[in-house]
């Protein structure tokens, strides 16, 4: 498929495109790139190294994401792919891409508040969360914890639908 040899930055860009096909196993509309967990891509002629950072320390999807990245790179004919984990700087929901936020909303999950310093989001009352179904701002929190580590449970007082909110951290 590759007709001309690519230079390093073209190769890198191509790897980022491949990574866009690797989805979060829990939220299959988001790619690992949308999530902002891919921190670095390094490649040479005979190897590819992808550095990822966990969303939560105990996120059980991380191992699967790592395996999926390796599988995807292998199937795209990259030799010797490697995935490393970096912890610092710690992941924040501000790293979710703009398109990722849109995808979350259309999937029925309210995206996290944006640009809120994490400490304020953690301690103070936050702005009302908009219902991803009917866009009403009349919503309330049912529980600070939800079906996965990254989500909280809310409900809409207008359309009466419960919905997940991607926690702001």
């Amino acid at each position, binding site marked *: 498929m590759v007709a001309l040899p690519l230079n390093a930055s073209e190769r890198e860009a191509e790897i980022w495109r491949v990574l866009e096909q690797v989805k979060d196993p829990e939220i299959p509309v988001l790619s690992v790139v949308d999530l902002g967990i891919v921190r670095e891509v390094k490649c040479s002629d005979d190897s590819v190294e992808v550095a990822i950072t*966990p969303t*939560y*320390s*105990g*996120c*059980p999807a991380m191992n699967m994401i790592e395996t999926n990245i390796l599988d995807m790179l292998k199937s795209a004919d990259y030799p010797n792919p490697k995935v490393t984990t970096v*912890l*610092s*700087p*710690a*992941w924040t929901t501000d790293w979710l891409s703009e398109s990722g936020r849109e995808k979350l909303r259309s999937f029925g999950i309210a995206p996290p508040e944006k640009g809120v310093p*994490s*400490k304020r989001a*953690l*301690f103070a009352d936050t702005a009302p969360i908009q219902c991803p179904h009917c866009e009403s701002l009349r919503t309330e929190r*049912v*529980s*600070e*914890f*939800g*079906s996965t*580590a990254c989500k909280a*449970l809310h409900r809409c007082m207008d359309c009466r639908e419960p919905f997940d909110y991607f*926690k702001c*951290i």
Partner: protein
Amino acid sequence: MTTPTKEALFEYVLRMGDNSLVLGHRLSEWCGHGPELEEDIALTNIALDLIGQARLLLAYAGEIEGKDRSEDDLAYLRDGMDYKNLLIVEQPNQDYSYTIVRQFLYDAFNFELYSRLLESKDQHLASIAAKALKETSYHRRHSAQWIVRLGDGTQMSHEKVQQALDELWMYTGEMFDMDEVDEGMLEAGIGVDLEAIRHHWDEHVNAVLEEATLERPQDAWMMSGGKAGKHSEHLGYILADLQYLQRAYPGAAW
């Protein structure tokens, strides 16, 4: 500044890892038994965060030790006296009020600890702390809200949570004890001055208890020993449950 010995650093990180692992295990016992669905999910989510933190810490401890022990080896193949967690985290769940008081007292401590560890000279420990602090802040808010809700709730919820507080108070002193390992780590700019964070812990705890109309118990005789591997009998039961598979079928994997 001094350079700590490898053994002391291992011990320091191991203690933190053990705290997270043992409390994470305790909370996981609530899975399917929570007082309401949302709390069932909350407690198991917190358990998951703690076990995630334990994995990071124990993996790092194994690396420091340099004897080729993985996070799993450290979790599954050590006996009780080699566990160095605080006594408070191994106390049984009992009822929900007891569980949430234990969580409240520990979250408040853990929050102060991780906040200070951000400045640790040990880069890896500082990055684990940065990750864990976000999670711990969330836990701390959750447990404090429940203390207020139960304390300032019905007569029965108030009595239960006050009783749990009275019973668990004697395990809070150990959190702030500085032994040789802690002193050495503080000296090296890696560890935290536990006596200095006590004041911040007090502030948070007092404010929440006041709002919850609960009475802060008098400081009296404090139980300690966990950091030195002297545990209450409860730890043995946890390990029997936690380690059964690897002890009965060494090396089992899936």
